[in-house]
């Protein structure tokens, strides 16, 4: 997920690995960015503190890929995405654009000078 305020040119990104920190609270304390529920709020707090505005914030999302016929046990990617949606919805933040799911691995970039986001898959 990338966030960007075009007026102040403040932005950031997070590449988290797991949906919920309750699985390992001690790890979440050391590395909050690893989990959606601790990482996304941390990123938002940091950019707001630097002066980004919630109303201007442009949020883009990429990832949540899955393996072929992966079944339920392996569906970490999908759960990662669902928790993100829930957090953004609770905070009244809309997603500008997204490229999620499917069996594509993606590399996401955010150019801080312009706010341009690219996704390579």
């Amino acid at each position, binding site marked *: 997920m990338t966030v960007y305020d075009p007026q102040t040119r403040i932005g950031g990104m997070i590449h988290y690995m*797991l949906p919920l920190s309750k699985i390992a609270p001690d790890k979440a304390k050391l590395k909050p960015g690893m989990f959606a529920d601790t990482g996304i709020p941390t990123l938002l707090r940091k950019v707001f503190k630097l002066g980004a505005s919630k109303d201007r914030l442009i949020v883009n999302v990429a990832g949540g890929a899955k393996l072929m*016929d992966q079944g339920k046990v392996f569906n*970490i990617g999908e759960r990662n995405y669902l928790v993100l949606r829930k957090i953004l919805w609770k905070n009244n933040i809309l997603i500008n654009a997204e490229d999620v799911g499917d*069996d594509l*691995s993606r590399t996401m970039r955010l150019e801080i000078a312009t706010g341009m986001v690219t996704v390579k898959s």
Partner: protein
Amino acid sequence: MNAKTQIIAKLSSFPTIPVIVHRLMNVLHEQESRAGDIGEVVRHDPALTANILKAANSSYLGFSKPVTSLTEASFRLGTKWIYQIAVSSLIYSNINRPADGYEQKSQDLWRHSVATAVLAEALSKLLNIRDSGLIFTAALVHDIGKIATHEFVGESIVEIEKLISESNKTFEEAEIEVLGVDHAEVGAMIANHWNFPTQIIECIRWHHNPDAAPEITPAMDVVHIADALCLMEGIGIGRDGMYYRPSQEAIVRLNASGSILELAVSQLLSSLEEIEGMLEEALPVYSYTRR
């Protein structure tokens, strides 16, 4: 000459691994091996001894008093730890190689391999699987076949991807159809060429499809699941990326669950940082090739 024959012909000229790797594996696989036995093997190799001491004194471990001997190091960190650092540092140059046909740079293949090894180790602990270090080693070398198959994959990538998108085949199924062999089978041949223990060869051979193995072992299932998780988390993956089918049976056989898998993944980053940080201090070439 078809692709399979050409790939196999290349294997005899493939670089070998240091003899000491075998000695380490043998010691570890003997029942009741003691810390002293590993030290006994390592001691005869001054360069390896120095690397292990540097790793043991790495800032990542955060001990204030430095260790000065292998005995102290194994007392502080354990036999298995010494084995893992030794094997990783000895095999590093064999794996830290580009697999261009899969669009994996050398550090991608290495990172995926070491992450799979760390994750397999975490999973085997969480699932209470008795293991002496075999699972770590097997996971570390599971993709070794790619080093031999990648050129051929690169040449046939259009055909391979067509089979994936049109016939819903996995990447390794498409490799078999187009090249006559997949990177798992070639990897097993390389491990055989290296005189690796049969159990490790079998883990490599069936790492994408443990259900098809003649004799399924927990080690094999663990390597399979660890690999699938690292692919899903996108760690060092290539163009073959997500085009693999994880085995649901392996989950059942190991009595694993979604939360055990997530717990293992949650331990991955810090363990990976630790082992990479130590190798960086132990192997001058490591940080050099990774910057």
